[in-house]
């Protein structure tokens, strides 16, 4: 049962890094890929339908830690307090930017604009750049924090936050991997000028090949980091796992199918803006 619980944890962690890594990486590259407000909205549309379903893999990972490895969750989260607080704050800021960006006064739809108080939407000029800034900064903070967290895991000290040169190098390397993954995702999703810019980053390899390569790395890195952790030893009591793990194993294929449906429904490249 412990082994199955570890496998589930690895599956959801890898799923988070591969899927959410793509939209976080694209968010990191937002100012590079989209030079105008309109282009940035297109870049966001490339991951808009997915990011809500992507980030929930991390919630599931945290839930699995709480349910199957409660002791380890406490050690890891308390030890990584200084890393996780910025990570969560960055995540919140980023998501706020994404959800709120398109909610500024739209042309002709804002009551003030409709009343003739200025033809340019009042909030749009400040609002949307501010939201874009939140998305970019939030995405970088999340990616860098993951690098710092992974540095502790690779060093075998999940209970203390990594510091020093090693932590800086790991944070930058992992952030670069997130960005490369985002560039690959952008090059399979976008069209027009943002697409051309994403292609400049992925080089002459086929778009899908670059995305698949960074995707495998994104799955491999957290799983490798997790191999050294004392997970099986700190698993929850047998009575808990005997009920929890089978239930989660039964539901997981349905979750994957529902997510697969999302990816299939929105598989086409984007050429226009979305709700965000």
């Amino acid at each position, binding site marked *: 049962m412990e082994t199955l619980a570890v496998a589930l944890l690895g599956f959801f962690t890898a799923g988070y890094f591969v899927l959410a890594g793509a939209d976080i990486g694209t968010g990191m590259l937002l100012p590079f890929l989209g030079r105008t407000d309109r282009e940035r*909205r297109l870049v966001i549309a490339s991951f*808009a*339908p*997915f*990011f*809500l*379903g992507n*980030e*929930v893999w991390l*919630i*599931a990972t*945290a*839930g*699995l*830690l*709480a*349910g199957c490895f*409660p*002791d380890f*969750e*406490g*050690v890891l*989260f*308390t030890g990584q*307090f*200084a890393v*996780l*607080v910025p990570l*969560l704050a960055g995540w*919140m800021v980023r998501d*706020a930017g994404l959800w709120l960006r*398109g*909610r500024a006064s*739209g*042309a*002709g*739809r804002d*009551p003030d604009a409709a009343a003739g108080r200025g*033809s*340019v939407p009042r909030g*749009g000029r400040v609002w949307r750049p501010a939201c874009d800034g939140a998305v970019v900064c939030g995405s970088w903070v999340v990616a860098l924090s993951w690098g710092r967290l992974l540095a502790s895991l690779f060093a075998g000290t999940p209970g203390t936050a990594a510091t020093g040169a090693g932590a800086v190098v790991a944070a930058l390397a992992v952030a670069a991997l997130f960005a490369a993954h985002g560039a690959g995702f952008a090059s399979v999703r976008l069209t027009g000028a943002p697409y051309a810019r994403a292609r400049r980053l992925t080089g002459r390899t086929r778009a899908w090949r670059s995305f698949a390569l960074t995707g495998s790395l994104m799955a491999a890195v957290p799983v490798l980091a997790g191999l050294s952790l004392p997970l099986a030893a700190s698993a*929850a*009591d047998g*009575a*808990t796992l005997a*009920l*929890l793990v089978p239930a*989660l194993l039964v*539901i997981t294929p*349905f*979750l994957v199918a*529902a997510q697969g449906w*999302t990816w299939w*429904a*929105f598989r086409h490249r984007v*050429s*226009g*803006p*979305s*709700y965000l």
Partner: protein
Amino acid sequence: MEFQFGLSWSGLTHYAGNVFGASLAVETIVAFFVESTFLGLWIFGWNRFGRWTHLAMIWVVTLTAYLSAYWILVSNGFLNHPVGYRVADGKLVLDDAVAVLTNPAALLAFGHILGGALLTAGFFVAGVSAHHLFRRTPEREFFGRSLRVGVFLSFPALVVTAAFGGVQLTALAELQPMKSAVFRQQAADVARVQADMAARFGPGDYVPSEAWTRGGALVMLIAFGLMMYLALAGVVLACFPRAVHRFRLWHLALMAAVPLPYLAMTGGWVFREAGRQPWVVYGLLRTQDAVSDVSPAAMRASLAVFTTLFAVLAVVNARLLVRYARRGPTDTGLGRDDRAPDGDTPDGDPAGSLPATRY
């Protein structure tokens, strides 16, 4: 929440994680995961799926929201009234899963929250509809109907909420006598329960803050009283189309009443959670013993960061809710056909290039 328990309350996950963590895990994976996936499909899937498929998606979101509430309250119910456990090596171990899943502190609260959530929705929909009828916006039919939906939902929801609330108050005398005594301001009972608990658990202060406990309960009960008058009058008035469309004083009252269910819900939670202090797991683990071993500076910094972020988000969200509520159903931004080719618009605003919503 899953992060918060590990970050700030690792004493709780360490001591009670075997029982309490499992329901949280089920909530994230069985309810929240499905909810987020289908909410994404629904928000971005307008005009991409058949009408019925698209409608079914929001029903999946609705059902998983109920599931979410159940599992969260199983976790919270265990903290308020631990059942189905035994203690082994200084930690709690799951002994009887059925007892945990049918904990009265979870089931009664589930009924109460379920009714309260529907009540909030009813008052919200009725208040927004009343605003449009008061302003005489063009969608008379639409908002006349939605006002009736809101009002006719509020009344039964209020009855259900009150019934479960009453049963909980009665059960409280047995489950958490201290909360019950502080709420009723029975000084003699408070002293008796304090002496009982000191005898059972050792010396200490077992009396929760009266200001929070009683204050929360009073806010809840006063909001309930006001809502009951409004809901009772509402079901009568809503039977007359003339009143629905023309009774402007009623429209104003419905608009003013939108904050009431929010106050009641928040007051009720404060009553429930402040009133069980000093326990984080009632009778088993004290709140002060559950706090993570983190430096006070770090804890203060995280509290400041998250409080600020949530306060900003709450203000922005409230303002956006008001702004979108004032717009008609076509100008919300949801439901536009974003598959349409992205033509250039004169003002260069991409939002302008989306065709209007149809409903």
